[in-house]
């Protein structure tokens, strides 16, 4: 999937997928429910859900890696299912329940998956971590076999350039109560 040219193109993009069109685009009203809170917004129809979360709502936990659905750093939950928010148009999600990493846990009240990522040292630079955790939390509700290989398969949409994969699998398996080949140290 990621061909090197595409990755380069994605990373070169700025924080804003709107482009540099000279004319002022139409702005449309939308009400989004994010982490249980309603927000009335006026946005350009091109605004991705990811850009909307980060630039309009200042929820910067969701990260922009490739902006093409290839890296998983932007993963959020819509109506309980994990999706790539970079490939969603924000304006299409009125009435949907959107949960971001900020809604999963807080600094003094970590979700068990967040706590497990800490215990298992399941990250290095941390850039992919919010997406990894959003995927991992969703995975708990999905048909996933017991083995590390099953977890790896269902986590393949989240890329970690530091290569923390063994510890990520261990963190998830710990929360699932499964034995991982890689034990937390």
């Amino acid at each position, binding site marked *: *999937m990621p*061909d090197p*040219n*595409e990755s380069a*193109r994605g990373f070169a993009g700025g924080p804003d*997928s*709107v*482009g540099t*069109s000279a*004319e002022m*685009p*139409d702005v*449309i009203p939308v009400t989004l429910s994010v982490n249980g809170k309603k927000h009335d917004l006026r946005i*350009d*129809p*091109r605004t*991705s859900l990811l850009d909307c979360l980060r630039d309009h709502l200042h929820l910067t936990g969701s990260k922009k890696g490739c*902006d*093409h*659905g290839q890296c*998983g750093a932007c*993963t959020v939950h819509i109506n309980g*299912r*994990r*999706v*790539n928010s970079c*490939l*969603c*148009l924000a*304006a*299409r999600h009125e009435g949907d329940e959107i949960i971001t990493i900020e809604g999963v846990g807080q600094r003094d009240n970590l979700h068990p998956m967040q706590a497990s990522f800490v215990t298992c040292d399941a990250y290095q630079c941390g850039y992919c971590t919010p997406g990894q955790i959003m*995927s991992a939390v*969703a*995975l708990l509700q*999905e*048909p996933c076999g017991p083995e590390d290989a099953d977890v*790896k*398969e*269902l*986590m*393949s*949409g*989240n890329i970690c350039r530091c290569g923390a994969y063994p510890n990520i699998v261990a963190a998830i398996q710990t929360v699932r109560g499964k034995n991982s080949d890689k034990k937390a140290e």
Partner: protein
Amino acid sequence: MKTFQLTRAADSAEAIDAAAQATTAQQGAEIRFIAGGTTLLDLMKLNVEQPEKLVDLSRLPLDEIEASPDGLTIGAGVRNSDLAYHPVVREKYAVLSEALLSGASAQLRNMATTAGNLLQRTRCMYFRATEMPCNKREPGSGCAAITGANRSLAILGTSEHCIATNPSDMNVAMAALEATIHVRGSKGERSIPIADFHLLPGKTPERETLLEPGDLITHATLPPPASGARSVYLKLRDRASYEFALVSAAVVVTIADGKVTRARIALGGVGTKPWRSNEAEAALTNQAAGEELFRRAAEAALREARPQSQNGFKVELAKRCLIHALKLATQKA
């Protein structure tokens, strides 16, 4: 990304009326339906697609899966993950479940829809790069792939104008299962066998399907599973997960007294459309199952292969993939 008008269709008639105003439903359409958005928004970000208007289908009631003695009805809006994990699909149409789960990532499968997957666009890098010539994106501009990086591209159904591969896994399984695509348009409804739905590139690679402006895919149907049939989807790729097929095979076979009594074969990663192989099916039918027969069927399936400068390996790889898929399916029996 070029700006666009976003509208939400209240019902299918409204969606069809809106889209019927476009001059084409193919590459460069001014009006596009949007459902999962995983292909369309990706291509809009690349300026490969620049629709002036998007018609949002997400509120249309097209997301039901219905099993009956007549087969399976799959709504156009059914998400790939819901289809893959549906108990009837897992049990009776295993090849479809396996194909869907081998495609993309869990996040994308939660977004992508059945109709969107039928219309999935090629991953040919020249199609996706507006600075390069591409007859599919810009008719008459030439094909950069034929003299360029063509390792992942097609060896069957190509023309001198286009060698782009159809990237879908689901379509390969649908071809082997002989799906029918149901379309509603301004002139009424019609049902199209999947074998006819996708077009060969020929001189007009920008035309990929039979769809005309206003045509809305409403659902796909699968016939009841053939009695005693076993099915397998085998996908070979550069890495174990989240990667497009170099080659893949969908096989649906029935064995009785050691003989193949019925076979439906389709290949992925090698064709400019989901590649149903009537040649392999004919070679298999009424013959004694076994490796020798499977090799003959594979030779028949790839006889017309026309490899490019970098993808000659696909010819033998596709043969081995089909042979192994047939072994797996007949071991199951």
